[in-house]
């Protein structure tokens, strides 16, 4: 009897704990939907890729290579070597996914083949690049060997006299040489990946750390919401809010006073992650995380991300009535922003519709700006749009939070 009552009591309590139920049901459903849609792209990663192939007009390999790539659903724009500069600019502007430059003037012997250059942006996703390299390798090798085979039609299988034996022996030796050339060719690097920096010059290949650290740093900075909402919920729960009101404190100054330390903590997070990346990771045998270019655009970006994170955190803090509610609303919101914004799932694997939706996430703006600075080595001018979006988002949230807080100072005070 007692057991049944205890079970009944638990059901009643659970039924009245809406936040707990929200965590149990709403969050997994939201994630299931977002992640399912984000990962629903059936096509191969390279499908639909837009590349340019620049090479000598006299080299028949280029046309055959382009044709071969076309069979893999890759859109190839053929161009002359002289167009390489223009194509690099197009690549920088996002008009191309990759530029392939074939420096071989003609279909030379395999052993004399110079590796093709793959010009890519440093923020290119590694898994996409890997898939593309596989397709390029397969297509180019196939093209070259097909062409080689077309020129080796020598046969001598009719008469059996001494002259014919000598001829067969010569042909076999030539074939042996050809196979040896193919073997050597297959073992040599056919492509040389070159990363195109913001200044139009080749830059160093980004490390895996440079690819991953910005995403998790941004994710971490947005979690400033948790301690912020704890303090604000505590002020309401302990009725300290009434004391603040009785002291005639202005909502603006109280909020500003809250923002300053949390802003500094955000900056400390940023600096801390950079220092750990630079000094601790090498001790663990991992590539060091180093910034490229001037520190100032990063500092400004860090401020913009912090403003967005604090605006979001403050808005959640004033809207949530309890700490639990803040964690569910705010924490859930951050994870959804991260899922949408390319933090958890790279944006390139998302279907087009989802990719468009991902652009509404402040984390996507932050990540894009960070990659532009860190990987593509762009300057402030190229990231100011993303920064502006972050600042506007933060400012809008802050203004809304200030209005709500101002009202709360009048309405949520109690004896």
């Amino acid at each position, binding site marked *: 009897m007692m057991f049944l009552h205890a079970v009944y009591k638990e059901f009643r309590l659970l039924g009245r704990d809406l936040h707990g139920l929200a965590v149990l049901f709403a969050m997994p459903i939201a994630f299931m939907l977002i992640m399912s849609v984000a990962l629903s792209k059936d096509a191969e990663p390279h499908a639909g890729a837009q590349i340019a192939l620049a090479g000598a007009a006299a080299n028949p390999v280029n046309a055959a290579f382009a044709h071969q790539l076309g069979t893999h659903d890759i859109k190839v724009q053929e161009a002359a070597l002289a167009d390489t500069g223009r194509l690099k600019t197009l690549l920088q502007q996002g008009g191309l996914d990759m530029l392939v430059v074939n420096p071989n003037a003609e279909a030379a012997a395999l052993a004399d083949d110079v590796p093709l250059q793959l010009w890519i942006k440093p923020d290119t996703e590694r898994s996409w690049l890997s898939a593309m390299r596989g397709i390029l390798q397969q297509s180019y090798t196939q093209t070259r060997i097909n062409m080689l085979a077309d020129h080796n039609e020598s046969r001598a299988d009719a008469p059996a006299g001494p002259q014919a034996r000598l001829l067969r022996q010569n042909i076999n030796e030539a074939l042996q040489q050809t196979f040896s050339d193919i073997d050597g060719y297959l073992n040599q690097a056919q492509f040389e990946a070159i990363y195109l920096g913001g200044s139009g010059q080749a830059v160093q290949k980004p490390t895996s750390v440079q690819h991953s650290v910005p995403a998790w740093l941004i994710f971490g900075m947005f979690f400033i919401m948790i301690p912020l909402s704890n303090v604000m919920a505590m002020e309401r729960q302990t009725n300290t809010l009434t004391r603040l*009101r*009785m002291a005639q404190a202005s909502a603006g100054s109280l909020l500003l006073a809250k923002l300053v330390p949390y802003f500094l903590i955000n900056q400390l997070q940023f600096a801390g992650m950079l220092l750990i990346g630079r000094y601790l990771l090498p001790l663990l045998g991992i590539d060091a995380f180093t910034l490229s270019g001037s520190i100032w655009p990063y500092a400004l970006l860090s401020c913009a991300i912090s403003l967005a994170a604090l605006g979001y955190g403050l808005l959640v803090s004033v809207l949530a009535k309890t700490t639990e509610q803040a964690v569910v609303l705010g924490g859930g919101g951050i994870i959804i922003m991260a899922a949408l914004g390319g933090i958890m799932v790279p944006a390139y694997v998302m279907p087009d519709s989802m990719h468009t939706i991902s652009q509404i996430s402040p984390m996507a703006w932050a990540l894009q700006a960070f990659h532009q600075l860190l990987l593509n080595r762009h300057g402030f001018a190229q990231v100011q749009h993303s920064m502006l979006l972050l600042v506007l988002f933060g400012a809008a949230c802050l203004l809304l939070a200030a209005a709500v807080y101002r009202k709360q100072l009048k309405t949520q005070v109690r*004896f």
Partner: protein
Amino acid sequence: MIRIENLCHRYPAAAAAALDSVCLTVAQGEALGLLGPNGAGKTTLMSLLAGLQPVQQGQIVFDDQPLVELSRAQKQRISLVPQDFAFYPLLSVWENLCFFAALYGVKDKQHLRNLIKQTDLGAHTAKLAKNLSGGLKRRLNFAIGQINRPTLIFLDEITVGIDPESRRFILENVAALTAEGITVIYTSHYLQEIETLCSQIALLNHGRLVYHGALGDILQQGGQHILRFQTVPPCSPAQAAAWGGSLDAQGAVQLATDEAGAAHIWQMVRQQGFQTAFFQFGHGSLEAFYLDFLNRQVAP
């Protein structure tokens, strides 16, 4: 002096008014005990007096100046010690005092040290507020309420759940406030505290001021005495009401009556088959007055 003139207040969508034509005067340095059952309008009245809610109808005047016209500095001299521990649990005692002092623009650290001495928190200044005992938290709450050197202070159930020593400290401090000329508006479910501290009593019921007068008048009023007894077996609230009383927290019947009334009830209790575990009949008190008054009140 605080003058409340014809104060009315109604919450949106509420059927009845929270306050209905309340008129009251509290002299400077006076301690007013505000009584009334739950929902009587005490909280609403205090919120309006503290300026936490706008006055809908009527007027509140502080020394001939309407409340709405008080300057920021004047409003800052109105203080509150709420029932909740309204401070930061993760700040130390000293840090809490310093923060609230800064909020009021009080720079005099000696004033803070005096408050610490006054509330006997000296040995605990470095402790985090969350680690204080219930009694020490009450003392800190009380100390914070005096940081702004108030001219009017609201004390709302400030001795709930504390040890006798802390209660004594706080009550002594409250008594000192009125001695310094600070107006005190005090609410508590411990009527004995109000009886000890307050010179004036205001009784609210259903949003109306049903009594306002000096405590001395109440205690001398009508030769009323308190009768308190415990029946065996315990009687129902309906039965207690039939005898003209009500059940207190211990399940004892309590009512105000005179000698003849007490003798009559004794007979009735016996006739109705009850034994009594105890049967006490004594002098009148604020508690007796309060209970008797409420029993006589009829809902509007």
